[in-house]
């Protein structure tokens, strides 16, 4: 993998640069716009996300596991309750509530890590030169030919900016 990148200021036509790369045959999935702060969604709108739905699914899963766990344990290792019901919904509900919310958080966390491609095991190019007020257009190229193409397009952008 070869990375070709160009540093630009925020007020540059970033969307135009990405369009030119795509028009030049660079696959869109290989183009990334890196920044120290999130850029306004008017320029790079967010893809639709199902993270909230996954959070709800995680919560339902947590709820189910909690109920199954608590009921199974309470029945298997019954305590003397002096005639009171062995399975007490309200006290068990407190623990179920906590496990439900915990599972929801963990589900959202896993979704974030998978979809944002995060993880300490991944090695990514570092850009110490990137500052606030700037972005880096980063193109990950599979071969030299593609890298050459991306380099020419970005060089054109840089030349246009200098002019």
């Amino acid at each position, binding site marked *: 993998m070869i990375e070709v990148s160009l540093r630009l200021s925020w007020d540059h036509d970033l969307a*135009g640069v990405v369009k030119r790369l795509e028009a030049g045959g660079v696959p869109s999935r290989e183009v990334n*716009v890196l920044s120290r702060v999130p850029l306004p969604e008017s320029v790079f709108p967010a893809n639709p996300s199902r993270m909230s739905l996954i959070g709800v699914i995680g919560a339902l899963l947590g709820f189910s596991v909690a109920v199954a766990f608590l009921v199974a344990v309470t029945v298997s290792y019954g305590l003397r309750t002096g005639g009171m019901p062995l399975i007490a919904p309200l006290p068990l509900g*407190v623990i179920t509530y906590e496990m439900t919310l915990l599972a929801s*958080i963990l589900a959202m966390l896993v979704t974030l890590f998978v979809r944002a491609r995060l*993880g*300490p095991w991944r090695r990514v190019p*570092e850009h110490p030169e990137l500052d606030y007020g700037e972005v880096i257009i980063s193109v990950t190229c599979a071969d030299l030919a593609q890298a050459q193409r991306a380099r020419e397009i970005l060089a054109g952008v840089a030349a246009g*900016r200098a002019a």
Partner: protein
Amino acid sequence: MNATSPAAAPISIAPGREAPLLRPMLVTGRAYKHMVILLTGVISWGAFCFIYQGFIGLGLTGLRRPVFWAFFITDFVFWIGISHAGTLISAILRLSSASWRYPVTRAAEAITVFALGIGGVFPIVHLGRPWLFFWLAPYPNARMIWPNFRSPLEWDFFAISTYLTGSALYLFLPMLPDLALARDRSQGWRHRLYRFLAMSWQGTQQQWHRLELAIQLMAAVVIAIAVSVHTIVSWDFSMAIVPSWHSTIFGPYFVAGAIFSGIAALILIMAILRRVYHLEDYLQPKHFNNLAKLLLTMTLLWGYFVFAESITTWYGNLPAEMPAFWSKISGHYAPLFWAMVLCNFVIPFPILAIKRLRTITGMVIASITILIGMWLERFLIVVPGAATQRFAFDNWYGYFPHWTEISISLATLAAMALLYMVFSKLFPIISIWDVVGQAPAPTGEGIAEPGPGGAP
């Protein structure tokens, strides 16, 4: 090949503006080192007392029948309350899009994680045989006895561990961009540390969108957890049929008290950070002023709760309740009770209500008195109800703390300070990307970023 070239167009934020926020991590003065040594000494003394107490047994402490909950449980409730400073306040401000929150949230969220960790230790310190603390965990022990899920103490285990997990994540996730910045600006062991913690964060727009969404969603969930945690801590008491404990108002009363003490702790720590790390440009009077207004609201709410609880007890005049009630109003515990009212209401109210007095110094004074008052409040909830004689036994003792209890409590205060100092040396104490890097609206037509995998 890297075709990176310097930007020619002017930028709205001067490069290197993050430097003042990174400086506390890199510059360590002599005073800092002396403080670390002092705090380590206090913590070591507390650790010695804890070991000594474990060696001798809990009989060493001032705990006597029927007062089996006292100093350590007071500390437990107090620290769990302080923990509400961060995640809850930060989450509320984030959801309400309060733009003044940016310099405040990181400092607040760190309080939560450390206070919760310290508070969670106290039930273990309080155990007669602390080395068996893992019996609280839900698994069959050697005698095939499972924990009693009906016990509020077991609820504490689940609530606190859930809150700690959620709060740690809520602190960590917004730090990712700043960790990546620290990674890019550092060398040596710090670079390796930040490279690991930054989780390969690059700052692609895909990552930003996902991160902001995750933080927003987690904020909503964390509020629900935070409220439940202190409600459950209050149920440790209100589920017991002990005079002055058995109260339906305890849930909201504890949550309000927790937010109250939490905001006071936040103001105090912000004032210290501002002065020690010279963060006057970031932690401005308007931030303190906004927090002071919240604190004033909580002062009034606290006063309302205490009044409502007291007048209901007094008017009900139940024989079982009244000895504990009068012991606080005019009896053995009256000096502590009125000191609490003084610290939580009489002193802070005018300071926070009168604009001329609402200076940073005034707010620090108010916060310190509130923290003292809230500790007294926790003590007055825990001890008088148990200590007041209800039966005609001769061997009915009162309570006076042993020096080991006081030492261990002070050691946890030192631990909180030390953890915070170490944190501020390793991580930016103010969210850099929030504060420094608010991007202006760029020109150009909008297109969708080519995401690698679509939704979600």
